[in-house]
């Protein structure tokens, strides 16, 4: 039996405790200080706002999530393909890589309005912004992972008469996966932010739209409700990627240490 607070349940419980205490302080501060809800709504008011029309929030959350997933999917597919191209081709490395680094210097949030002009006010511009902000870390980390493979490992593949594609698929790719996942974790969070920014600029649906329109009507409890849901969703997305990593990379070194710790004592 290890120390309870270092186990998973223990960590979840301690986190819950911290959140509960903070919420209690916040509630007390608003009630005792008699603060107007449009300045700072109490947690109970926020929960009430969500409870009043849960389906309405669900509908907007659904929009934001779809945009995030589509943008992320585009970023993953294009990002991994670009990374493979950069690693395998000198010309692509010199042209595309430099271009990407330059592109990354442009604040993508600032070019989001451009996408509205190009792609309209529907789903497409949000997906585009999400993909654009998410792709950079995915490319960088995938390139890094593919390059980090021991060259003698590639010799092993060649000694078994493997084609470059087979070596990529069976040796180099799996080797790079931990790095790729590092990029995916950053990428999913950025895609989510990208989708929200897209909604800020012009939208009829989505939680980003809810935040902006609540501001217009001074409906602060609704704004807080949207922000709370956004935070929870962001957490959920990140953990989904972590779960996928956990399932796909049981051999990864950081996991091994955990297993040893859990099984060792």
């Amino acid at each position, binding site marked *: 039996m290890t120390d309870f607070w270092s186990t998973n349940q223990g960590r979840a419980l301690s986190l819950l405790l911290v959140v509960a205490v903070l919420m209690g302080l916040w509630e007390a501060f608003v009630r005792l200080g008699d603060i107007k809800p449009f300045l700072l709504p109490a947690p109970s008011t926020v929960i009430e706002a969500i409870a009043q029309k849960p389906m309405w929030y669900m509908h907007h959350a659904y929009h934001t999530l779809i945009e995030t997933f589509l943008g992320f999917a585009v970023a993953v597919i294009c990002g991994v393909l670009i990374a493979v191209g950069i690693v395998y081709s000198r010309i692509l490395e010199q042209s595309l890589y430099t271009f990407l680094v330059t592109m990354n210097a442009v604040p993508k949030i600032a070019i989001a309005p451009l996408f509205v002009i190009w792609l309209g006010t529907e789903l497409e511009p949000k997906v585009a912004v999400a993909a654009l902000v998410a792709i950079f870390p995915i490319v960088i980390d995938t390139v890094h992972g593919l390059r980090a493979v*021991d060259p*003698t*490992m590639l*010799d*092993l*593949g*060649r*000694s*078994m*008469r*493997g084609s470059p594609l*087979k070596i990529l698929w*069976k*040796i180099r790719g*799996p080797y790079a996966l931990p790095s790729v996942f590092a990029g995916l974790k950053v990428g999913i969070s950025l895609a989510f932010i990208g989708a929200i920014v897209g909604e800020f600029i012009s939208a009829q649906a989505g939680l980003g739209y809810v935040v902006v329109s609540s501001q217009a009507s001074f409906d602060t409890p609704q704004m807080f409700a949207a922000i709370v849901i956004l935070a929870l969703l962001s957490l959920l997305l990140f953990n989904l990627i972590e779960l996928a990593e956990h399932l796909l*990379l*049981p*051999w990864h*070194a950081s996991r*091994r240490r955990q297993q040893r710790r859990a099984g060792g004592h």
Partner: protein
Amino acid sequence: MTALRARHAIPLRSAAAADAAPLISARGVGKVFRERRGGGQVVALDGIDLDIRDGEFVSILGPSGCGKSTLLQCIGGLLPVTHGFLSLEGKEITEPPLDAGFVFQQDLLLDWRSVLGNVLLPAEFQGYRLADWEGRAHELLATLGLQGAEGRYPWELSGGMRQRVAICRGLLLDPKLLLMDEPFGALDAITRDELNLELERIWERTSKTVLLITHSIAEAIFLSDRVLVMDKNPGRIAEVVDIDLPRPRSLDIRETPAFTAYQRRLRSIFEALGIMRRSAP
């Protein structure tokens, strides 16, 4: 095995013919690397003449940077030669031959595959049906004392066990030729002795041709029929020493006068080449 041989279409020859024609033949082989910057050249190998008979155990001994690994990679088809002619069974080596198994200095096991999955990798790369090879993989693992470890993962194994798995992988397709690049260099002395013995046993039983690169004079003498001593700048074969010790060999042989005489002889060759400093009188 018959399926493999038929696929590769190796002509069957009489034992007499095999004696006549060497398995590996090198004539004036050279390898020059172009430096990336400055356009300079590095001569890694120069004028290598070499014949290795079928079934022979040959070691290459030499200082670091003498090109012994380069020579092995050329024979293994991983590096093209720049001068001369290098052939396996009379055919010029232009790509890794199907009939060569590799064991590298690092075990190079894939962490995400079980021991069995790692051993089966060469069959998978050839697109063979894995079910046909599982029996042989189990057999090889048992030969090297790894029965029962099939389902374990590389990171659960010791360095010696990992290198044993790598040897099984190199032997899976029953290659005629086993190319070993300092396979025991990273192991502790006791594990190294153990693996030397096991390799000797495997060689006795399977009559494979083995080309082993090593730093260790004792290891080279213990395992080999012939030891090639290489010199550096440029990499060339300086001397060939036939090891005429009875087989099968046990570790005790290392204390016999004949063995120590070979050690002295090889040491004096290194001294003459200026690689090893002469010991004080």
